[in-house]
């Protein structure tokens, strides 16, 4: 598919909404798809599935550790369980169970975290998941996905269901700008180059994809040609796309709504170091918990908007000279 040059980035449905809708479609297509939720189905949007398939929806109460174990048992007996809660709860409270009950025996459990990052807004840091990509990537055999918008979520939830093995999908609470046409093809582990560019490559996922597109458009006006890559699969990384970006541009920015420690950025940096070392800059949350506020205000305050991505790009371009 040729790279697009124009994006309208209109507000679209939240990725959690796209997840909930897709789950219902999967439920209609495959009777082995089942869902576990921990008293948040009206927020994770598994409520749509629960309404249509009450027999295949297992309410687990506010008990994430048990929920993950139940999911593992269901998978062990041949089901395709989608285990869902806020990212912060399923990943932190269920981590030990994800490790021993799911990753270690490599069971076919799909973990979907909603309300990821700081863009949940007003509820504040106890509900804000800013470390779960690092945690998920530390589980051997896990596929880790971070879709940017509705179309990406629909396609990647389907890809996760078709994949045999454990998957974590990171979705968010707020409306997500529309990046993709409905027909866009997604493949686990295959990054998508959204904008061509020679001077710097911006590698992003989740909500930072749209911000990176905006940044690239601003940079273009300054004469900086920025490549934008959607790294929707954090694990396994598209090493070839990273190597090519490093070789072609010699300067890389990684942008994500996650702690800069342990997220997409450090994983990309590892591949850059192993393939074609070049200067890099990182847009992410710097060793801190955020606070309550409106999502947009928080993204601005914690340095996760187009302006921050563009500044990082200018800095890394200057460093290579």
């Amino acid at each position: 598919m040729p790279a697009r040059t124009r994006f309208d980035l209109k507000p679209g449905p939240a990725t959690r909404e796209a997840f909930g809708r897709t789950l219902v479609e999967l439920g209609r297509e495959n009777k082995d798809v089942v869902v576990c939720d921990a008293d948040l189905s009206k927020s994770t949007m598994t409520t749509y599935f629960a309404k249509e398939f009450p027999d295949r929806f297992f309410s687990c109460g506010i008990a994430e550790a048990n929920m993950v174990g139940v999911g593992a048992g269901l998978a062990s007996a041949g089901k395709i369980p989608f285990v869902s809660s806020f990212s912060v709860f399923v990943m932190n409270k269920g981590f030990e169970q994800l490790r021993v009950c799911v990753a270690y025996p490599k069971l076919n459990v799909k973990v979907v975290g909603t309300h990821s990052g700081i863009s949940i807004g007003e509820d504040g840091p106890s509900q804000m998941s800013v470390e779960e990509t690092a945690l998920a990537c530390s589980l051997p055999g896990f596929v880790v996905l971070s879709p940017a918008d509705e179309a990406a979520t629909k396609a990647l939830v389907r890809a996760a269901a078709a994949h045999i093995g454990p998957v974590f999908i990171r979705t968010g609470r707020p409306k997500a700008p529309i990046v993709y046409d409905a027909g866009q093809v997604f493949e686990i582990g295959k990054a998508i180059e959204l904008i061509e560019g020679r001077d710097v490559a911006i590698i992003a996922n989740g909500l930072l994809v749209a911000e990176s597109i905006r940044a690239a458009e601003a940079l273009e006006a300054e004469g900086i040609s920025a490549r934008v890559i959607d790294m929707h699969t954090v694990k396994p990384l598209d090493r070839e796309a990273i190597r090519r970006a490093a070789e072609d541009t010699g300067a890389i920015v990684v942008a994500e709504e996650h702690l800069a420690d342990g997220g997409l950025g450090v994983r990309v940096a590892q591949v850059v170091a192993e393939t074609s070392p070049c200067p890099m800059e990182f847009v992410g949350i710097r060793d801190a918990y955020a606070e309550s506020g409106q999502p947009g205000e928080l993204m601005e305050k914690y340095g996760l908007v187009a302006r921050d991505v563009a500044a990082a790009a200018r800095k890394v371009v200057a460093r290579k000279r």
Partner: protein
Amino acid sequence: MPRSVEELQDIAKRVRRDIVQMIGAAKSGHPGGSLSAVEILVELYFDFMRIDPKNPKWPDRDRFILSKGHAAPVLYAVMAEAGYADTPLDQLNTLRKLGSVYQGHPDVRFIPSLEASAGSLGEGLSLALGMGLAARLDGRPFRTYVLLGDGEIQEGQVWEAAMAGAFHKADNIVAIVDYNGIQLDGFVKDIMEVAPLAEKWRAFGWHAIEIDGHDLPSVRKALCEAESTKGKPTCIVAHTIKGKGVSFMENNPKFHGMAPTPAEVELALQELR
């Protein structure tokens, strides 16, 4: 052709000898909690469960999960005696050695006939519930049994799963607590009291039965009662003796996680003749 109690007792004695020898050879491991669970596992694998060791992936087989994964030797010995292809009897003494299928704790990567990997306490009941829910959804008749340690049930996840099992009316799962009264640091009552056990499970909505966990007919009777109990899961509180069958290991916290010396192995094998 069902086995007589005498035959099952003979198997139990062989399993005890296997356990002592394999842990002795490994020079590390958990003899006490393996020996306390022998009759429970022998009754399940050699009498009660609908299983076919020659066809370990038969979809309708009953499932057994050793949630107290440190008692792996009793499970390995029972499966080896039962004739599973991936648990060779002549390799039991490779326990815990590099390259052995007999890992320190049960690991499905090495023994595919196992129903679950284990080793982190408190997780097996959740797995059992997931399997039970899947069975009910698919209309399959299999039942799932999970063995919990009495120290293990100090883990909060066990009670999350207990609540959920009753809520979902999972009458096709059975929890068996190996109530031997000892955990690593000492007696359960001194570390974190779990009594009154049967009452706790009843309060969580389970049918609870208390038995002598070394009396094979009692174990069988309790498993039958669990199977005929509808609308709620059953917990069998099996009163057992840690280190059962080896006089110097019985009720001795030291043998929770300590291997017998070669001399102690010889002594134990004399007692288990």
